[in-house]
């Protein structure tokens, strides 16, 4: 039997979990015995690369050789981390983290090949693909990916008896996701999910550093640091202070800056004021997801906390103020996503390759069920008449709305706009709103139509999004019967894509 593994590939911290012999997920500590591993890489030379705690601790000695928080660049095709004589994409950097996690875990549980990797719910097609690619570069077979809040909800459902409507509040090192779920025992249905791309622990660390700088400068008139290496060292200190303020109302700290040493005192209140804009952002996101789930705070039966930054007292106060109830902290918030990803791996293995799974695990998995939603809207670019501009403009017409339960099938009809129109541009978009400038086009091609027909010929667009992450789009010219079929693989590895494409009839 092969190991069934889930990985939380986080912005600042990552973790790996395996399903044990009775189908319960367990975190596999790294070779240093730590249950979570910093997502930090130190390129000591072209040959020597350190990953994890060691790399994090070395960051201050040569900050230019340290790569971190690259998960935030997964969407950025132009991002390259240049070091020594090489440059790395965000996928390549992520693959180093995955390799480290898997290598360390393999020492304890044996060979690991098939994995599920978690991603933030807001990740778009490109980011999901980049994550898949990272897994492949690490020599892994990524059997599926799972949204982080979905993974956390799945883990909570497997361990805590929860029923009713829940809010999964996942504030990690670099990203923030909020999901509304409906749970009936171990049956979890995602209702709505939203994420903030750039909000997490690293932003709070920077805020703490700014507070330290302000205090130092106010007292000495000088600068705390002027060198990037020193900054990295102070950032580590800021992170420690932030953590301390999660359990204390104030902390005293010696700061050794360019104008000598001083001792500063930083209170929880000062820190909370400093991060108040970020807290405001978290509240906006919670309100948004409640709005999309069509519910009020009082409709939420329980709030599940996930992610290390959810420990910050100001965050917990904000949740209580907004939701009118205390959140549940029943599990280790740093580990819930990896543990949930391992469960997802079990569900996938039972479904796709039951022979590779023990009957005990299969039995445990069969008690769980999770239903997800479309994380983004999918549509097409169409033309419509704008009364204000008094001309035809292109717009994004949404066909499958965000947060539609999967599987979903939606049919929409569009019409040709000019007499004799012999070509129609069929595009598939991902994103919200009607403005085409603000959505991503994930597929585009021309479809030929019969000539010499008047305008107004109906073209039927059918989007079918299944729960395996496959979207099948059929574009049909109703009157001639001409049709074109396009398959979009949302969050499926390139190896799997190629295997599926080999069978598809166009």
């Amino acid at each position: 039997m092969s190991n069934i593994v889930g990985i939380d590939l986080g912005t600042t911290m990552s973790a790996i979990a395996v399903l044990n012999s009775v189908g319960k997920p367990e975190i596999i500590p790294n070779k240093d015995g730590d249950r979570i591993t910093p997502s930090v890489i130190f390129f000591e030379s072209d040959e020597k690369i350190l990953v994890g705690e060691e790399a994090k601790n070395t960051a201050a000695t040569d900050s230019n050789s340290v790569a971190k928080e690259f998960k935030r660049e997964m969407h950025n095709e132009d991002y390259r981390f240049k070091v020594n004589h090489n440059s790395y994409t965000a996928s390549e950097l992520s693959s180093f983290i995955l390799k480290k996690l898997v290598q360390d875990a393999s020492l304890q549980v044996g060979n690991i090949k098939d994995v599920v990797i978690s991603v933030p719910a807001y990740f778009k097609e490109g980011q999901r693909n980049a994550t898949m690619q990272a897994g492949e570069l690490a020599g892994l077979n990524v059997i599926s990916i799972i949204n982080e809040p979905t993974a956390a909800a799945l883990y909570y459902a497997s361990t805590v008896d929860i029923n009713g409507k829940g809010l999964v509040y996942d504030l990690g090192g670099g990203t923030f996701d909020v999901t509304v779920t409906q749970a009936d025992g171990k049956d979890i249905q995602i209702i709505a999910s939203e994420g903030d791309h750039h909000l997490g622990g690293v932003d709070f660390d920077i805020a703490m550093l700014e507070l330290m700088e302000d205090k130092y400068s106010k007292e000495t008139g000088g600068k705390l640091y002027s060198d990037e290496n020193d900054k990295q060292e102070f950032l580590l200190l800021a992170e420690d202070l932030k953590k301390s303020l999660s359990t204390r109302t104030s902390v005293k700290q010696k700061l050794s800056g360019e104008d000598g040493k001083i001792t500063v005192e930083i209170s929880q209140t000062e820190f909370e004021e400093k991060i108040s804009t970020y807290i405001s952002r978290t509240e906006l996101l919670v309100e948004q997801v409640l709005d999309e789930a069509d519910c009020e705070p009082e409709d939420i039966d329980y709030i599940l906390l996930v992610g290390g930054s959810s420990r910050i007292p100001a965050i917990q106060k904000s949740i209580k103020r907004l939701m009118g109830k205390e959140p549940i902290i029943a599990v280790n918030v740093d580990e819930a996503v990896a543990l949930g990803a391992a469960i997802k791996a079990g569900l996938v293995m039972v479904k796709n390759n039951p022979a590779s799974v023990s009957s005990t695990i299969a039995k445990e998995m069969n008690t769980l069920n999770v239903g997800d939603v479309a994380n983004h809207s999918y549509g097409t670019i169409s033309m419509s008449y704008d009364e204000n501009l008094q001309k035809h403009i292109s717009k994004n017409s949404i066909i499958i709305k965000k947060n539609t339960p999967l599987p979903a099938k939606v049919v929409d009809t569009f019409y040709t706009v000019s007499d004799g129109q012999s070509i129609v541009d069929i595009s598939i978009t991902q994103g919200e709103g009607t403005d085409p400038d603000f959505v991503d086009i994930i597929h585009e091609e021309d479809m030929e139509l019969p000539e010499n027909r008047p305008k107004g010929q109906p073209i039927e667009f059918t989007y079918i999004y299944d729960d395996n992450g496959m979207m099948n789009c059929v574009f049909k010219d109703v009157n001639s019967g001409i049709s074109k079929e396009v398959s979009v693989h949302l969050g499926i590895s390139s190896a799997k894509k190629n295997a599926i494409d080999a069978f598809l009839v166009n």
Partner: protein
Amino acid sequence: MEVIFWIGIIWFILTLYGNYKEKQEQEAMIKRIAKERQDNIFKSKVINDKIVVEDSIWDTFKIDIKGIVEGSHDNFDMRFIVRMFDITDGEYPILCTLEDFQAVDSRVFFYESNIEKLPYKETIFSDWFSVINIPKIFLEFPKKGNRKIQIKVFAIDANTRNILAEDNIEVTYLAEEKGYIDRQNDTKYFEEMVIKTAMLVSASDGTMDDDEARVVKDWIKKRLSYFDESRQTEEKNRLNGYIKDIFFDIESGDVDIYEILEGIENIASEGEKFELFQLCLDVAQADGEADEAELKIVYDIADYIKLDRSQFRSMIEKTLPVTIHTSEANADKLLDIDSSMTNKEIKKYLREQYKKWNARVSSKDVKIREQAEKMINLIAEARKKYI
């Protein structure tokens, strides 16, 4: 002998009398025919009529004819042609938006009927015969107001196209919409306003640089491309003239944007207002930075020309994103928070704005991502302030 003589005399007299009678009859017949022609002269009339098309009732000019049409033989092919002119102050064509009523390669009103078969060489339409019923809604007059319309109706030989009969009639009509000459004049005024306003935006930061000049120049070139080559020089001189005028006015400080934009409500369509505003935005962002003075003037322009709010916001977001503002962001202005809004309204509005911008933070376009990040922070700041 004497008898023969008298017989000859009587024959002669009778012959003379016969000739006289025949001539009299011929003259009477000529008179009768002439009278008949006079009575049946080809003529036309215009009736202000209505037609029902689906659920609509359209006012029409119904044009009827009666009288004689003379062909070259029996069973003769002919057509009717109708033309219309505005003769209120000179002679101008009347245009039509319906293709069926347009001259070839032109929008000038022109109607030609299908072939009519005349049974006789001279056929008299003794009753009024309807030639055409023109919906007035499709006609375009040169100017607004009371117009004197001349309608010319022709009967022509369908083969040789020679005119067989014709008639002119005049009617008056109240044109409630602006005419094409009015619009030509408006267009010139609009172009003047656009150029002058764009120049003012360019000068608002204290300098008129090359990038801004290029934007205005490109706009002028595009306008010139709409004209025939023969008119381009004349039009170019006109448009360049506006630049010179406003340049010297700006230099002497003798310029008021409100004076320039005065009257825009009456002459510019919504689409034209957006065109003007877009050019101003393009000028403001031409050097990659939008300073406070430029922002102030574009917001003033938007207020003055009363642009649709959501469209205006969309244009600002695309052309003058917060990322190119050189002054500290005025969150309320950027987010369009109105001082009259209640906290509840602001909360709802901020949630909508957050939803919009949060969907853009993972855009493939780095500029959009950066803009979204800044906007989200502004929204969060505003939430702290108002909620």
